[in-house]
């Protein structure tokens, strides 16, 4: 009787164990392989990794996930973590990883030479590999570019109910506000945010593409979004999105002053890294000319390496002056930015 039940239990147990092994890819990573935790989506990193493997013969293991969750995984796994590299979007997260003590310093002539110093960590803990800009996008039929000037000026009364932007839970907005705190201070930024919020055409919702679509559809006259979303809308298959993208144009704000807000996606070596040499090779590969061009053409991001050839899309948006703020600041001020937006009622 109980024997029979035990049989069931044992069958289930053995069955699931067999399944585990059948399903599980090799847990232990073979010698020389580079293991990567990436907060960049698979589609936006795997093609590069495949090229790396093809050219060097070094295989790469990949787990993708959300940045903070992966960072937590690095933290709890500690010195036994199988990850050699950590890739994430947003300098704030890279900074957080540095503070959490899960990264190690990398000394590389190649990296230091290729990447401008404001786009990498002062201590060599992380390196920007692509740049993303967050300018103002305006509806061509309703707004003249000379009506626009700076992010700060968007708090003006004349924009009442004319602006679309996503929620404050989003890291891009948090970084934008953090950059304003770094440049203007908390008090000024808070006063700005309180007025800026009253200019929203609707309660914030959706992603960056949604803001552009809403602007094109007539719900607002200005949208704030990262440029690569616009690029993807232009080159996507969805006719409605193409039409929406056609209706707006990019305005680079603060060109007289500090420049438009930019952020990076970056790579860092983990403290637990076991295959340092190959991991470093992969890091350097990511700032090679070919990789940098791939970012620009496939994801419409801006390369970090200065002399990289821009794609037609990037060229069509024009050259711009980018904020030279050291991006570590964005990480340090991120929490302050979130709380400031809460106080301002930015949902």
């Amino acid at each position, binding site marked *: 009787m109980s024997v029979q039940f035990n049989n069931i239990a044992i069958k289930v147990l053995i069955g699931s164990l067999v399944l585990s092994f*059948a399903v599980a890819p090799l847990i232990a990573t073979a010698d020389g392989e580079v293991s990567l935790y990436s907060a960049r989506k698979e589609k936006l990193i795997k093609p590069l990794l495949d090229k790396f493997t093809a050219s060097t013969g070094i295989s790469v293991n990949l787990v993708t996930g959300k940045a903070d969750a992966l960072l937590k995984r690095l933290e709890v796994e500690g010195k*036994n973590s199988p990850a050699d590299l950590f890739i994430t979007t947003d300098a704030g997260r890279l900074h957080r990883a540095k503070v959490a003590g899960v990264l190690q310093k990398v000394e590389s002539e190649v990296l230091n030479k290729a990447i401008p110093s404001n786009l990498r960590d002062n201590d060599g803990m992380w390196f920007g590999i692509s740049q993303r800009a967050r300018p103002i996008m305006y509806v061509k039929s309703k707004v003249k570019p000379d009506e626009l000037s700076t992010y700060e000026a968007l708090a003006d009364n004349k924009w009442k109910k004319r602006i679309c932007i996503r929620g404050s839970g989003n890291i891009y907005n948090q970084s934008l506000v953090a950059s304003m705190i770094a440049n203007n201070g908390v008090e000024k930024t808070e006063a700005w945010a309180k007025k800026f919020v009253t200019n929203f055409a609707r309660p914030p919702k959706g992603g960056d593409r949604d803001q552009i679509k809403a602007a094109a559809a007539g719900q607002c006259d200005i949208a704030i979004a990262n440029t690569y979303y616009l690029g993807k809308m232009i080159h996507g298959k969805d006719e409605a999105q193409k039409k929406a993208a056609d209706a707006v144009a990019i305005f680079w704000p603060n060109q007289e002053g500090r420049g438009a807000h930019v952020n990076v996606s970056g790579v860092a070596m983990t403290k637990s890294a076991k295959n340092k040499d190959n991991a470093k090779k992969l890091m350097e590969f990511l700032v090679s000319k070919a990789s940098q061009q791939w970012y620009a053409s496939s994801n419409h991001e801006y390369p970090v390496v200065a002399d990289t050839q821009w794609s037609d899309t990037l060229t069509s948006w024009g050259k711009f002056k980018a904020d030279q703020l050291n991006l570590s600041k964005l990480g340090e001020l991120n929490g302050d930015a979130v709380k400031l937006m809460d106080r301002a009622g930015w949902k």
Partner: protein
Amino acid sequence: MYRSQNIFAMPQAFSSHTPRKVVSFKTPNRWVVLTLTIALIMSLPVLVVGNAIFEPFNENWQHLKEFLLAEYITNSLILMVGVSVGVLTMGVITAWLTSMCEFPLRRIFSWLLLLPLAIPAYIIAYTYTGLLDFSGPIQTQLRELSGWGYGDYWFPEVRSIEGAIVMLSLVLYPYVYMMARAAFLEQSVGALEASRTLGSSPLNGFFRVALPLARPAIITGLSLALMETLADFGTVQYFGIATFTTGIFRTWFGVGDGTTASQLAVMMLFFVFALILLERWSRKRAKFHNTSQKQTAIKRFQLKGAKAFWAWFACLLPVFFGFILPALQLLWWVFTTAEETIDASFFSLTFNTMLLAIAAALIAVSIALLLAYGKRLHHKPLIRTGVSIASLGYAVPGTVIAVGIMTPLAFLDNSFDAWMRETFDVSTGLLLSGTVFALLFAYTVRFLAVSVNAIESGLGKIKPTMDDAGRSMGLSPLGVLQQIHLPLMRGTVLTALLLVFVDVLKELPATLILRPFNFNTLAVRAHELAADERLADAATPALMIVLVGILPVILLSRAISHSRAGEQ
């Protein structure tokens, strides 16, 4: 409680030499220890998260209290109330119609009504936003035809709290439907027939007999739906509604304060505790067992004409809006993107996902059987509380519970590694973390509530006299579970299996953070594309989740129907 019932219910011949006392002295420890150990292991992740309550509250908590907490609580409550109304209305009415009435296509509806379960809430939210949003095809068409602009006309706003209530209700009502239908089908026809011979109308019979009898099952379904509502992140975040879940993520990811985020999670768990108490209270108040010895085929009310149409229509509505329409939208997207999204890796994704879901369903239901039966054997407060805490994992946002799972596993791995290094100078590295084992553990913890609730409601319907009869004939407690309970609640066990299976198919946050290298599931693929705002590309994996989920749904529905003696 049930002991006193036994005495009255047991035939004299059995009760006079029931060896229960002797046996229960010999074996209780084994069961108590087993149940408590499993409950403790399953509770670990929740306890890891809950531990934050003992940390001091810092200035971020003050900030939460001052600016956000009231909104989180209000919105979460509105969502819960709204979803309750939605899932109860849709779930109970359709369950009653398909089990007790006869109308065109009834049999097909009985399983069609389960299908929305296979659609992840955030996917349905995306599809409806795509359709109904200001810049979507319907409103655009409307503006083109009428010449209106923004603000000239009223149109329901999908991305609102009302919209979220509708979206969540549409995919969560099957929990109520499933439980209520099983309960209606298992009810003895005798009670209903008695009410009818006493002159009750069908409607009266429904409200005065069937509904009260099915109430424990309905509340079980409701509490599952509400726990999932509380844990939902994708929908509320996309709709811009501040709830506990979005607050937890904001505090953790935005402010970078894991402790305060966990404290917020603990506060949310108080809501869940209230739900659990409600559920327990409802079951206590209404302890109904099947008393009828013979179960004859249900004589369904034959609905004709307008009544038949309305019944048909009432069943069509949730199926249409919860499944057909979103599935069509997904299918449309699939057609426009298939060549890019379907490749060789797509099939290994599907295979991975199915195997994981099957394994997790088997494990979670086996553990649920042990826990629920252990609870039935020994009515100890300690066991009850243990099982309740173990079930809390369902209501905690996936990423948070995943951290609760990751932490003890990594601690175990690292401690073992340190010990091995010290003793044998060998490094074992991480043995459990980042393996399929970790994933299966996570799924079991996360969906234990689903299986335990289903199994408990099934066990509750079996008269305790059955246990006594079995024991008196020399069966061990395990023998009773296996030879008496399992056959009697085949339908319930299958229900539990299916629910966990479908939940694992859809599961995202824990999979995302805990999975091994180079390993993806359909939900991960769908999420990666959707999070990159490539909704159309996400449609293929999303639709595949639905397809993989459908087959067991159909099989299950048949099993539930057949689980009732006399039902064809």
